[in-house]
Structures are given as C-alpha cells and as structure tokens.
C-alpha cells in the first residue's frame, strides 16, 4: 500500500517537511541534553530525593509509632556485663518423653506457658534418623542465631536481635509478609493463619515481644527464649519441664549454665562433650548447642521409634477460632 501513494500525498508531506522547522528540532532531540544539563538534572534529582531520607522519622512521629525494642532493659551480670543467653541440649538424656509415656514435656510446658496456638510447637521434638536405622530425638527451639537470616530479611524490623543475643518478634509491627519464614533454615517460625485457637484468658495478658501473649492474627511467632523469666531468675518453661533435665539454660558471658539441678561451666561443658550446632555450615551462628546422643542416658533404645504427638490443652477456645495444620 505504501507504494501506491498519490503524488499529491508525497508532495504534501514533502512540503510539510520543508515548511516546518520541526524535523530539525527533533533530529537534535537526542542530543538536546548536554553534559551540563544532565548534571543539572541529577542535582535537581538529588535535591528532590533528599526529603525521602527524613520521611520515615517524620511519619513515625506523626503516626505515633514507637521504637519497639526489648521493652525491658537487658539482663546484666553483677558487674554490669550484658548476659548472653544460651541453651545446651544434651541429647544423651532426651528420649522424646517415651519413658514418661507422654508427649514431649518441654513442648507441652512451652505451649501452656505461652498459650501457643495449635499447631505451633515453638520447641519441637524432631525424630532424626541415625546411621544404622535408629533414631534420635532433637528438641528444637528457635536457634537464636547471631547471624539471623530472619532478622536480615525483615522489611520492617519487626523481628530483631537483642543485646542478649536473642531474636524477638514484635507482633504489633509485623506485616505478615512471611519472608522470615522462607529465610529461617530451621523451620522455627509459625504464622497465625487465622484467629488463634487459644483460651480467652490469654487475651487479658499485657502484650510483650518477650512473651508474645496474646497471639495476633496475621503475624509470625516463635520461641522467644523466655528472656523476661530469665531476667527474674526463672528458667524457661521447657527447661523446667524436662523430666530428664536434658536442657541447660545459661549465660555465655558469665560462662554458666544450669538444667535446674546442677550448674556447669558452659564453655568447658561444650568442649568436653564435643557440642555442635544445627546446620553449622550455614554460618547462622546459633546460640543453641547440642550434645550428641539418642537418649541412652535415659535408658532409651535407639530402635524404639516414634514419640507421642503433641496436644494442645485448649478445650476452651476463642469464639470462631479454627485450628490449622502445619
């Protein structure tokens, strides 16, 4: 079709080109901005972008948002050093509560203490395979990493590291994007998919990031290492509940740990028992240490498999709450 133009047409467009100085202008268009122009544009852009840096603080003030960190002061030793909480789990003593003929007591106590919604097991007792076909039980709380992948990826600092070396979540800030769950290599984060199935009395408790009660829909939860209890000299629920005293809680700064029965010097205890950490090659630097074993000190035969499944004692639930599965 382009070949069949009436001459008139051709002529007209030629005329048009001659008449108007427009095309020359456009020809130059690509070079319309000189170096100076670009610099000026960049300068203007920088001035224009400058307010962006001060926007968030202004918005925070305007919206009345608080900087939520560990609400209480960090726990300190007598001479003022900040305590560095740690947990040592002696797998030689952990039989998954097979001998108790009960679901793992640490998990149960944690659930009751924190009103943890079903199906969250903040400290979960996994059954790992051993070479040769036997199994070992591995109670797994949040590993309280010192290079925490979850904290690194959180877009709003809702999950954060504390001076005591633990990781907490502020459920009043969490937006529920769940990137921390994708980032955690230990499967230790839990989401409130619906209205949490928890007893109504938990709703009366004042919320704190160190206790995470009551649960808030659409936010992430996990083991908080019970720093509020530790500060007042109480051991975490899981440590208290362990019938075999397999879990030690302590302070690396003062080099001390206890399972509620005895005291150990944490560093010597770890060294002498060749302690290890989970997925150490990821470089997450967990604060939870393990001493290898399969419950032999509790008299467990590694070929007796399976533990009893965890139950949630909440018979009374919040109206309209439904449970969900992992």
């Amino acid at each position, binding site marked *: 079709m*382009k070949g069949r133009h009436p001459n008139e*047409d051709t002529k007209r*467009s030629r005329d048009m080109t001659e008449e108007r100085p427009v095309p020359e202008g456009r020809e130059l268009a690509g070079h319309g901005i000189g170096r100076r122009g670009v610099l000026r544009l960049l300068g203007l852009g920088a001035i224009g972008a400058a307010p962006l840096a001060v926007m968030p603080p202004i*918005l925070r003030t305007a919206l009345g948002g608080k900087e939520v960190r560990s609400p209480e002061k960090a726990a300190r030793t007598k001479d003022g050093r900040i305590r560095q909480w740690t947990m040592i789990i002696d797998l030689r003593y952990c039989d998954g509560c097979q001998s108790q003929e009960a679901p793992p007591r640490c998990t149960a106590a944690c659930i009751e203490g924190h009103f943890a919604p079903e199906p969250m097991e903040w400290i*979960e007792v996994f059954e790992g395979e051993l070479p040769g076909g036997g199994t070992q039980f591995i109670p797994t709380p949040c590993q309280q990493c010192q290079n925490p992948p979850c904290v690194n990826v959180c877009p*709003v600092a809702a999950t954060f590291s504390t001076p005591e070396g633990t990781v907490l979540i502020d459920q009043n800030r969490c937006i529920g994007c769940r990137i921390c769950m994708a*980032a955690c290599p230990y499967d230790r984060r839990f*989401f*409130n998919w619906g209205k949490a199935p928890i007893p109504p009395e938990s709703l009366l408790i004042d919320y704190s990031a160190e206790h995470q009660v009551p649960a808030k829909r659409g936010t*992430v939860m996990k083991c908080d290492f019970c720093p509020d209890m530790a500060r007042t000299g109480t051991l975490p629920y899981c440590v208290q509940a362990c019938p075999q005293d397999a879990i030690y809680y302590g302070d690396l700064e003062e080099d001390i740990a206890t399972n509620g029965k005895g005291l150990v010097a944490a560093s010597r205890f770890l060294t002498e028992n060749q302690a290890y950490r989970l997925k150490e090659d990821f470089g997450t630097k967990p604060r939870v240490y393990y001493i290898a074993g399969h419950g032999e000190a509790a008299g467990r035969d590694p070929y007796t498999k399976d533990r009893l499944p965890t139950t949630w004692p909440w018979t009374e639930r919040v109206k309209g709450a439904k449970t969900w599965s992992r």
Partner: protein
Amino acid sequence: MALDRTGKGGEDVESLGRAGGSPLEGTGPLEGRGPAAEGPLSRLERAALAPVTGTSRWYYLWVAFLLMVIAWGVYAYSRQLQDGLIVTGMRDRISWGLYITTFVFFIGISHAGTLISAILRVSQARWRTPITRMAEFITVVALACGALFVIIDLGRPDRVLNVVVYGRWQSPIIWDVLAITTYLTASIAYLFLPMIPDLALFRDRLAGRVSRWRISLYDLLSVRWRGTPSQWRSMGAAITTAMILIIPIAVSVHTVVSWIFAMTLRVPWNSTIFGAFFVAGAIFSGVATLIIVMAILRKVYHLEEYITEKHFVYLGYLLAAFTLIMLYGNISEFLTAGYKLEEGEEFHFRQLFLESYAGFYWFYALGGLVLPGVLILMPWTRNIWGVVAAAVLVDLAMWVERYFIVITGLRVPLMPYEPASYSPTWVEWSVMAAGFALFALLITLFVKVFPIIAVWEVAEDLESAEFAPAAGRLPSGAAPEPAGGAGR
C-alpha cells in the same frame, strides 16, 4: 502565534485545527489534512480513532464479564480479610503460594514494555512503532496488578504503611518496593511522554464527538502540545532520557524480585544465576504477553494494516531467541546443582523431575521452551497463528515455572519432617482470576480512552516509507534514520 488553550472549549480547538493555516497549530505529521483525503495517513488516523469513537455490544459484554470476575475475586478477598489467610492453602511449611507466583508472573510480563519499547528504540528498530504503545501499557498495568498481589498476600494488609514508616533497606522486600515503585513511575512517564502528540491529536480530532470530560482530559494530558519545534525537542530529550533510564531500572526490578528468593537459605533458591534467569524469564513472558495482546487488539480493532505478520514473526524470533536463553539457563542452573547433588538438592531434583512436580516441570521445559521454539523456527508454522500459539504456550509455561519455583523451593524439608503439600483454595484461585481480569479490564478501558497506536511515530514511518526504495518493507537497521527519528 501564542495560543492559550486553557479555558477554551473543544469547539475552539477544533476550529483552529480545521483551519490548518499555520503548521504550528497542528499535531504533528497529520495536521493540515482535510477529511476528504483518504491517504494512508488519514486512514491511520481513522484506525487510531475508531476504538474511541465506536463501541460495540461485545465490548460492554466483555467489560461486564470482567467486572463479574473481579467482583467474585473481591468477595473471595473479603473472606480472606475476615478470616485471615487460613482460607488459603498456604501453611507454615509452604508459606507462599499462588499470590506470590502471580506477583512474580505479573512483574515478569511487565518487561514487555521495556524490551519492545526502550531496547528497540535505543537500537532504532523502526518496525516497533505500531506496537510500542501496547507494550508500554502492558508494563504499567502489569506492574500495578503485580504490586497488588504482594499486598493481597500480606497477613496484615492494614499495616502495609509500616513498609514506609519502618522500612529497612537491608531487606529484599524493601528493595522490591523501591524498584517496583521506581519502575512504575518511570513506566508511566515513558508511556505518557510519547503519547503527548497523540493526545493532542485526540483533543483536536475528537472535539464534539465524545463527551466533554473526555476532551478536557485530553486537553489536560496533552499539556498544551502544539507541535512547535521546541516542544518536539523537549519531548525528544525527555524520551531519550527516559528510555535509557528505564532499561537498568527494568533489569533491577526482576533481579530484586528473584532476590526475595535467592537471599534465603533454601537449597533450590540458593543460586547466583537467579537474578539473570528471572530477568530473562521476565522478558520472555513479556514478549509472549505482548504477542497475545497484539493479536487480540489487531482482530478486534482491525489494525491489520499496521500490525502485520511481520510484527508477529519478528517478535516470534525474539521469543525463539529467548527459548534458547531459557534453555541455557535451565541447563546452567540444574547441571551445576545436580552434578554435585548436595543434601536437599536430591529431594528437589526428585520432586521436580520425577515425582510430584514433574508434570509442571516437563510441561514448562517441553511445552514452554522447546515447542514454542520449534513452532517459530519451522517455516510452515512461522505465521501469525504459529507465533500466537507459541506465545500462549510460553505464558502458560512461565506461570507454571514461577509456581514450581515458589512451591518446590519451600517444599524441601528443612528438618526431619514429612514434606508438606500445597493446594490452592477457591479463594486463591478466585483472587488470582480477578487479578488477571483486572489486567484485561485496564487494557480494555485504556484502548477506549487513549490512542493504542503511536500515531505520530507510525505516521513518520509511513512518510519515510514513501521514499524508501523497497516500499512495504521496513528499512533495515543500517538504513539512515529519517529526519525526526533520531531522538526516538
């Protein structure tokens, strides 16, 4: 001649346009033509105006259908707002699903505009002109729809502002927010700038034929365009700046989208190639989407004269080139991991190639990479139908790829537990369908209001083609640029 158009009615503007005395009043290459002259340029003008002036019954039916799908999706989402994400199939161990898949897919197809428009503009490939506007619009709409899905996926959409208030630049999510908002802004600018002369044309030609608010809209958006040399120069400079800026922005966008995954310690996502692979996949699916949209609009609005088989075949070649790039990416990605078969990779390879997700993977690899390539490279299917079929396959396959990347990545067990399973619920399917309906609706409405063909650019081409020795064929890249094209 200083004309102040503000405050003047449409009639005034029209009468000035009709008078056609001074070239400065015109709207580019089209000015000064009486309605009687049925040359190619006025045919072009008629084709460009046709969607805006005439509306068929089918159009209303189509819009009604889309609105119904959207309304259903809104209902589904309201259920999600009420009960929480429990209404979805996502759970702790597979904590992302259809929403994130759709988000990644939409951000992917948003690369249509950049590639076709900016890259072809930079390389001065002139055949692009009739399809740039569509490509640019797909970009803007896809970005808006994609961004929506991140918010839909949030557990606490009421706190979405926390991203601004407490945003940490260390988080990949914030990189995404920054990159996508920048890209959206730049894309809107890049859509708008070359549209100004066409908006002025609409303002002048449609006065009295469409409702008054539409004319005021065109009047407002055409920013007093009169086609003066200084205006052409400013616009050219602005377009040049925008097209160069938008390419790195577009690349960054899909790179950081992939980094949402690659910045985690999940075995299948732990890949250095992820960013590049995602960008390639994005352009791949973007071109495919453009081909589909192009084919539909061409049919519906009879644009056969401007969007020819050549456009399909050229874009088909691009698609074929990208099938090779994607195949290379697959080999590069899976061979380096599969050769060593670290812990976790073995599970991943089994689920992807042999077990639960094998159907998805092999559909993607064979149906989405190999078959489209064959369709385009075989001479007897290298036509509009063949290319469109290839494009449909590619889009389906790329959606499936995003799906299995998200799901299988999360599915690899981290601790000794049984692998979780995920199946989307009706809520997720409904919301996703509504997302695609919104995408279609925005494009449908855009076509009704704005020029879907870059009229002045095509007009320039028509003019230059008159002098080209081989009329009907587009000048090759080596041919000297006609006057007025350099800035574009």
